[in-house]
């Protein structure tokens, strides 16, 4: 029995191909049936915008079978075109891959948190469908807890890597909770919208202002916010905790003096100013004011880059954990292979011992308590001596890393099974 992971992801295939292959949730049951028809005993399908991946256990699954399953019923997919983008991993490598995917180490943005949820969803879909057996169950549950372990033991998901999110992180450094904090967006723009959305999700109140009032109203609706008149917003600065400017105004919309007065009016509660406009909207001299924190686009970019770098370092740490966990699971799975054989061997021999003892008991005549226990000990010792060699041989094989070749413990286990005529358990 093999564990196989195969599919395409953001590294191996362009988005045009990935989007053709992506499954809608309601298409997955049919695809699972197709995989099982190709010979898979167990199967899970993970389909996100960055990857389409089949995980299955089977006696044998050739690339052709996998391609057939991936391409089945997909319009405009030519199997031969698909072939060069396909990757395929088996056994240990497959386990390692699943762990890395779950921990978001294989993601386009390393550490992004959605992938774990997507994998869990794929797992429960397959479970409902009945295509999850003991093997996939063990591996996937393990993958989830590995992901959790990595998240709690490393800083993988900790630092913001996008500019708009870096702005939100900074706001948190200043204010702590962003609940009910008042945020003003001056002008429009992709980045300020991104930041506004993050801030809204964190519970902040959004205000929007724009030279064109209609634009402001439009955007305010997007964030369930309010509008503010463009002409008066500098006067109302004292009410605001965060201001994001990205207006196309050629002149500065906030001067040092305006901010100084606002700070005084708000009793020196900190104010966070984010200037993502080019040319800049806020006088850089504002930065000298105590309790005013001014960041421009370059500052945010630098922070995001630095976080990305830190995250790469953290990924190294996470890889170590993955390696450790793969090894642990491997050992467990190998033991699972030989464990039952050991038990049935022991049971078989014990059965023989007791049979023989009962059959020949009469010939021994009456025994004292002491003699009786001596006979017991003697027969047991013989049986244990016989069992010792095959058991320790199996254990040794299970404990040894196979190093990429076919695992030998299964082979040894089956030999022992045949030689002692053990029943399948």
């Amino acid at each position, binding site marked *: 029995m093999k564990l196989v992971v195969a599919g395409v992801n953001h590294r191996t295939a362009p988005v045009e191909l990935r989007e053709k292959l992506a499954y809608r949730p309601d298409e997955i049951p049919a695809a699972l049936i197709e995989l099982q028809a190709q010979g898979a005993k167990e199967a899970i399908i993970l389909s996100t915008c960055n990857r389409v991946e089949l995980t299955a256990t089977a006696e044998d699954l050739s690339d052709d079978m996998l391609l057939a399953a991936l391409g089945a019923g997909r319009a405009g997919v030519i199997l031969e075109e698909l072939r060069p983008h396909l990757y395929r991993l088996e056994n240990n490598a497959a386990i390692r891959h699943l762990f890395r995917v779950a921990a978001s180490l294989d993601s386009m943005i390393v550490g992004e948190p959605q992938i774990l949820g997507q994998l869990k969803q794929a797992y429960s879909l397959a479970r409902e469908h009945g295509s999850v057996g003991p093997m996939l169950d063990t591996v996937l549950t393990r993958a989830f807890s590995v992901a959790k372990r990595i998240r709690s033991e490393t800083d993988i998901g900790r630092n913001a890597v996008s500019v708009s999110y870096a702005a939100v*992180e900074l706001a948190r*450094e200043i204010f*702590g909770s962003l609940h009910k904090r008042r945020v003003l967006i001056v002008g429009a723009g992709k980045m300020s919208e991104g930041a506004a959305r993050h801030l809204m999700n964190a519970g902040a109140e959004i205000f929007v202002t724009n030279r064109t009032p209609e634009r402001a109203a439009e955007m305010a609706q997007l964030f369930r916010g309010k509008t503010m008149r463009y002409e008066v917003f500098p006067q109302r600065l004292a009410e605001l905790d965060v201001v994001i400017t990205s207006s196309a105004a050629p002149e500065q919309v906030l001067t040092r003096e305006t901010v100084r007065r606002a700070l005084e009016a708000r*009793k020196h*509660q*900190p104010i966070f100013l984010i200037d993502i406009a080019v040319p800049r909207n806020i006088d850089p001299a504002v*930065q000298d004011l*105590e309790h005013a*924190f001014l*960041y421009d686009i370059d500052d945010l970019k630098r922070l995001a880059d630095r976080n990305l770098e830190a995250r790469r370092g953290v990924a190294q740490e996470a890889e170590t954990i993955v390696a450790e966990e793969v090894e642990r699971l491997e050992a467990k799975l190998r033991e699972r292979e030989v464990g039952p054989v050991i038990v049935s061997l022991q049971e078989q021999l014990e059965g023989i011992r007791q049979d023989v003892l009962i059959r020949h008991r009469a010939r021994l005549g009456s025994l004292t308590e002491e003699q009786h226990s001596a006979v017991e000990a003697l027969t047991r010792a013989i049986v244990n001596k016989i069992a010792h060699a095959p058991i320790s041989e199996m254990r040794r094989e299970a404990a040894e890393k196979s190093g990429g070749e076919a695992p030998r413990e299964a082979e040894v286990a089956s030999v022992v099974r045949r030689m002692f005529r053990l029943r399948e358990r």
Partner: protein
Amino acid sequence: MSVLWLRTAAALYGCGLLYALIYLFRKSTRLFRPALIAFGAGTIFHLVSIAELWAETGHLPLNNFYETSSVCAFLIALLFLLAYTRYQISVFGVCIFPLVFFMTMIGATEFPVAKWSPEFRNTWLVIHIATVLIGFAALIFSAMASVYYLLQERQLKRKDVTPSANRLPPLGTLDTIITQSMNAGFVFITIGTITGVIWAFIESGTGWIGNPKIAFFLFTWAVYLAMIFLRVSAGWRGRRIAWLAVTVLGCSVITWATHATLGSFWQR
């Protein structure tokens, strides 16, 4: 008789002090009016006391430190009331109420009273020390948070927010911690100061005022009061309040050091 009026006045001023302490936590001026009335009544008793003493001696009672302290407190109270009727600024109360209370209380200790029983005396001492220590603890806590505030503020200003696990707490959180522990510390140290002054007064009679330990304790308390007032009225925060917190902590350490020989106070 005049000392009795003075003590009544001190008790009424005490209501003002109570208001000031509550205000630190509640930030509501709902209790200001009753406190102001009590304070005004206190001022009237204070006036009666001074007038009586004046009538007795035939001149303004400025014979010693107690009397000057009392008269000065009276003048401050009067000025405050006048300013309030004209400008309606209630936030000064946070500073003036405790100050007037303390100066009047000092004035009211001109004449020694009967000694107390040893058990009562020791219990009183325990209360005094306990409240002061709790106050110190809160103060140390707030000074520590202030240092973190300074570090975090500097990082944010330098745009040097480190992407590491041991990030500093957010400025807002630190600010709340500083405010709350500073306020709590002030309440306890104020109670500690009152109990301490009363203790010293009963213990060593009118001679207590010459004790440098107590003088320094009062000085520490006054700096603390100033800090609280600046924070409440002028909205001092961040760097300035952090340095003040550290200063008050320094004063407190010296106060503590002067009390190092406290063991000798315990009786029997």
